């Protein structure tokens, strides 16, 4: 398996459908550019923070 280089840090957060099932976000509708980048709701597992047991 080869290492893949990620895009630079300016990439926006990936939309919900590309993330594993523990995250969920506001789903933009096709053809609504006004709200396409809005992620008003994001869900992270309570286990998903580095620095705890």
């Amino acid at each position, binding site marked *: 398996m080869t290492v893949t*280089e990620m895009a630079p840090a*300016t990439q926006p*957060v990936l939309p919900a459908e590309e993330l594993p099932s523990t995250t969920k976000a506001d789903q933009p509708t096709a053809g609504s550019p006004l709200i396409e980048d809005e992620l008003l709701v994001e869900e*992270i597992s309570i*286990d998903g923070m580095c620095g705890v*047991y």
Partner: protein
Amino acid sequence: MPAERLADELARGLDAPICLTWEFTYGCNLSCVHCLSSSGLRDPEELSTAEATGLIDELSEMQVFYVNIGGGEPTLRPDFTELVSYAVSRQVGVKFSTNGTTMTPARARCFAAMDYVDIQISLDGASPASNDPVRGEGTYAAAVVAMERLAEAGFGRFKVSVVVTRRNAGELDEMLALAVRFGAELRVTRLRPSGRGALVWNELRPTADQLRDVHAFLTRHGEVLTGDSFFHLGPLGDQPLAGLNLCGAGRVVCLIDPVGDVYACPFVMHPEFKAGSVRESGGFSAVWRASELFSGLRQPATGGACNACGSFGACHGGCMAAKFFTGLPLDGPDPECVLGHGERALAAAGGRGVAAGLSPGHAKPGRPVPVAFGGRRLARAR
């Protein structure tokens, strides 16, 4: 409208932690070779029951959502159940880590009856042959008995937490099956060179090939918890692993030790990363909000030597504990950088890097220094 990534906002810190780790005691009936808090003997200055309930009151006022209680072996404290019950009564949820040796059927039923209490059983191998050299003879069997008792008591989805090492990296599927067998969830976390972990890190840390396998396993099994401890493996994939992919230390989480000292996280229980003490006049909240250490961590960090690397956005330079205890600069690559920059940095630093002369912490006297693996059992104290 959110203008920036959530992780970037959280990196600036919040007015209260989201959750935190609280080690109840340094006392432990085991002597795991990689113990991040070098536990064994109780400290004579550990927080009293009154001090602990006062701290719980403060956490409640700050709306800390839950605490990860650990140690040492936290259930060894005589006031353990009292403190857990009190936390829950004050809307502070609890997840406690235990080696399972104290899990009688009665205690399992007692915990199963409590709301907002979760349990994490520590286990580091899919069989005694891989687990016991790390955690001690009989510890695999004891953990499984605890799991059986929790399942029998109808506890529900407790956690089985595994520190990934060279010895168990090939057993993750088996460990997932073991967790599922008892109705539990598997959690895997990163071995850091912290506490006694510094002494075994070079021998126990997974190989680069194993880390690729771990990443593949986590990608296949989105249901496996990680405590966000593998975000440094992010560049191995097309998308990030689940979690904030952010070092939360001093920003959204921290550690409170058994004597009330506050550290950035459990993996940096070292004076360099001590923020203060809950015994100071402002209590925990003053330390969280105003300590110099945490204020510094909440400043935007430059990538330093990593700035030129296209993968920095995915790995964020990795883990500060891993860098600190291997003698690497905090603004450079993680020793386990998947692109190999860490290996090069370690080599350039002229040696295997693990900090020498670490204090024994609260380890039991007479415990022999762990010897190299190579198929031999570790010498045991007494």
